[in-house]
């Protein structure tokens, strides 16, 4: 049975404490910083969901932002156009994303590697085009405007409150991922990535699991889309153009196949555009260089790289204290 180390729990506790204190530190009226903090939440969810798909199950997706868009638009339509309560709208958006994910799951179970990458990329393009052309539903190229803020008991939530809601959802998503990974389903997912033929011979329904994980991953991405929609109050198709690649960068650079990877990836890649605001024209170039460097020097991602480095330092320390010990043992 999986046991998480005490030191890991300490790190998690510190991270949660920092996350809780952050909006107070930047000030409840500092909308610029609060928006960044909220973006960490939805990007975190998105990276974690993509990690389930790529990192754990080994299914390539180049169109993950499509599910975020589907979730966001579904929320906006359910909430504003149809006037449903935001909780129902969120559940509806997640269910719709889940179903769309299963649709891609069908492709997953038939295609592999590069073919799947092309299919998901095509899917994302198709979703964008549908959003632009179905004007009556989505507002078309002008975007979907005026998505209302969350209202609880007559109180309109500002970004300060929204951040805490988003953070709570993010933590729940990570708890879900943690439980999923250290379960029968999680082991089966990793088996599918490691050796599909052996996985099938162990009684794992390989296609069934690909199908299921696509659905789960899309549902989580849809959930992130809801937060995005509420935070932005506005959606348009071109907002999602580059997001798929950003998400891929976050997941791959952060470290695939670990729960901390997406967190590290989100914090690093999510902060870059803000730091490089003056060079925003070169942002994509910076992403490209980052991916190349990380792939060359830390193939397991930034998190994996740090972990390996820490491991090396530890063994060197042990090695340094070892000779004396051996000499004593010799006597």
């Amino acid at each position, binding site marked *: 049975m999986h046991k998480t180390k005490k030191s890991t729990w300490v790190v998690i506790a510190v991270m949660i404490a920092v996350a809780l204190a952050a909006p107070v530190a930047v000030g409840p009226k500092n909308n610029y910083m609060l928006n960044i903090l909220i973006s960490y939440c939805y990007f975190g969810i998105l990276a974690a969901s993509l990690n389930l798909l790529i990192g754990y199950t080994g299914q390539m997706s180049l169109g993950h932002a499509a599910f975020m868009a589907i979730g966001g638009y579904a929320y906006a339509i359910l909430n504003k156009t149809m006037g449903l309560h935001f909780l129902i709208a969120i559940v509806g958006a997640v269910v719709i994303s889940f179903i769309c994910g299963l649709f891609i799951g069908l492709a997953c179970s038939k295609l592999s590697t590069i073919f799947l990458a092309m299919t998901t990329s095509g899917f994302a393009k198709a979703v964008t085009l549908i959003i632009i052309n179905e004007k009556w539903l989505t507002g078309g190229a002008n975007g979907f405007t005026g998505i209302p803020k969350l209202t609880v008991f007559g109180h309109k939530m500002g970004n300060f409150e929204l951040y805490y809601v988003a953070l709570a959802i993010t933590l729940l998503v990570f708890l879900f991922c943690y439980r999923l990974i250290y379960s029968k389903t999680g*082991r089966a997912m*990793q*088996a599918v990535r490691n050796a599909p033929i052996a996985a099938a011979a*162990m009684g794992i329904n390989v296609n069934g699991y690909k199908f299921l994980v696509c659905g789960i991953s899309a549902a989580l991405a849809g959930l992130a889309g809801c937060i995005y929609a509420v935070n932005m109050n506005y959606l348009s198709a071109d907002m999602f153009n580059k997001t798929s690649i950003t998400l891929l960068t976050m997941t791959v650079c952060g470290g695939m196949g670990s729960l901390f990877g997406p967190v590290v990836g989100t914090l690093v890649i999510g902060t870059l555009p803000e730091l490089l605001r003056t060079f925003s024209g070169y942002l994509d170039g910076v992403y490209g260089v980052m991916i190349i460097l990380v792939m060359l020097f830390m193939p397991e991602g930034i998190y994996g790289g740090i972990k390996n480095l820490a491991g090396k330092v530890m063994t060197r320390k042990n090695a340094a204290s070892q000779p004396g010990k051996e000499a004593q043992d010799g006597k």
Partner: protein
Amino acid sequence: MGNEILLKAENVTMRFGGLKAVDQVDMEIKKGEIHALIGPNGAGKTTFFNVISGIYMPTSGQVLFDGQDITKLKPHQVTQKGIARTFQNIQLFESMSALENVMIGHHTRTDSTVLGTMFHTKKMKEAEWKCYHKAEEMLEFVGLGDEKETLASSLPYGKKRILEIARALASEPKIIMLDEPCAGMNASESNDLAQTIYKIRDSGITVLLVEHDMKFVMGISDMVTVLDHGGKICEGVPDKVKHDPQVIEAYLGKEDEE
């Protein structure tokens, strides 16, 4: 040893384009025996294995397991029925620990759902512990009790083969099919392996084995089937097979050739 037939292949043919990899093979495997399948390279042994374990669907013929037709089942359904296998080219889940590998072997017998996982129900926790203990037990059984936390990728070659057997056993099979289990093992390792195979047989699991090492096969098998060019050329107890002219011919070539 009873005379009950556990696995029966009737007229199994597997054709790849113009090539008949397995040609009308009949085979019966009795419950509780160690049955070996031998033959020169390219005789169709592994293909026959793949047909039984559901990776290939035979062009014609039938596979019956415990009286049920399993010809059209998918690999994971075949495992569910109680047929486990190992691979000639080792297929471990390399990035996972030895224990996790074996836990995956127990997949079909683990009773937990995604919803149970989400809410951490008591039933799910119990299922997980059961799976954990089963995996521990299987590692002890094959003598890998000390390698629980070792990554599969960092195990030495011989131990990888043994780990595959532990993983297959974790699925609680009625028959285990070993595809060249002692390939690349030294004498002492294959001797240990023979002991493990006897232990498996004694625990009530039937063993079907593909092997090249004649000494090994003749030593431990109750029954031997010989394939050559996809067809069955001989079947019987090791002593009979050893002296069969057709078998000798298949392995050493005809005297008057050239």
